[in-house]
């Protein structure tokens, strides 16, 4: 009768000799990919930060200043010409729509380009209102 084998007699196995070099090479490739990914992420972050600073920073706010000053000037000129009773007209409603859009744009932190476009629209609309009122006054005088 042959001797009784037991679990302890199960053979053990050696991994192939090139397994560790393969693991090490794979690890190095992964590490290089991670480093490259981290550099790419860093560059992207820097570019994003630069974009945000350019779009939202003090210089961006400063570039809106002439548009805002022009807006105030037109408002004052219009206020001098338009009596309170005549303020309810379609052109005035359009102006209010633009102002609401501008308010919402500020609230959600819109980009400089969008804010500037809305300020320009507001100024154009004020200009239209002003020109219309000036024409009305000339007709009245005639």
């Amino acid at each position, binding site marked *: 009768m*042959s001797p009784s084998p037991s679990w302890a*007699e*199960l053979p053990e196995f050696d991994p*192939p000799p090139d397994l560790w070099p393969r693991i090490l090479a794979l690890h190095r490739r992964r590490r290089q990919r991670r480093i490259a990914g981290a550099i790419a992420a860093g560059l992207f972050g820097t570019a994003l930060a630069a974009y945000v600073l350019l779009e939202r920073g003090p210089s961006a706010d400063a570039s809106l200043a002439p548009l805002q000053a022009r807006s105030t000037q037109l408002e004052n000129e219009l206020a001098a010409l338009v009596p309170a009773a005549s303020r309810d007209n379609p052109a005035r409603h359009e102006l209010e729509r633009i102002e609401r859009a501008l308010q919402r744009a500020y609230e959600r932190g819109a980009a400089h380009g969008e804010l500037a476009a809305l300020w320009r629209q507001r100024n154009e609309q004020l200009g239209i209102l002003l020109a219309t009122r000036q024409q009305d006054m000339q007709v009245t005088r005639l």
Partner: protein
Amino acid sequence: MTIPRPPGTFAEHADELTLQRARRGDTQALGELYRCYGRACYTLALRLLGNTAAAEDVVQDVFLKLFDAIGGYRGQAPFGAWLKRLTANAAIDQLRAQRRLDGGDPEALIAAFDAAATTAADACDLWSVLQRLPPQARAIVVLHEIEGYTHRELAGLFGQTESYSKSILSRSQQRLRRWLGADGDSAPGSGEKHVAIPVVG
């Protein structure tokens, strides 16, 4: 299979200095850990999976994970035991990915036993007959009988009940004894081989 030599088991002692260096990402220290435990990892993976390529994949996955995970090893358990868990989990994950686990259907597993029985004629030693078992049954036998997992641990590992694990182990032991001729009903060609397989408790 290789020429017998002093076993490289999970009970090997990893010195604290090597572990500290490995935690700092020293690849040479990780190489020393591989030399100490690589054989044990490979043997366990091969016993569980029965396939050399799959076992190599598991060892590769385990040591690649180790590069990242060793920083989280705080010495709460012996390093070898911790690494054994990593290896067993990786092997079970691979069985799961290959859909070689039987999804908890005992009938399917029993049917697999019966299918295996027809091909066991050439099995004549414990390693050969072990490989004839269905993958999940083999994994339960290896982890319980050789690696000392409890039925509670096996239940958690396979997402089954303890009684399921006990049932599979019992059936596996019966089948192994029969194939090895230990109960007098030897498989053709298996001759007089016997195995000391305890009755499941």
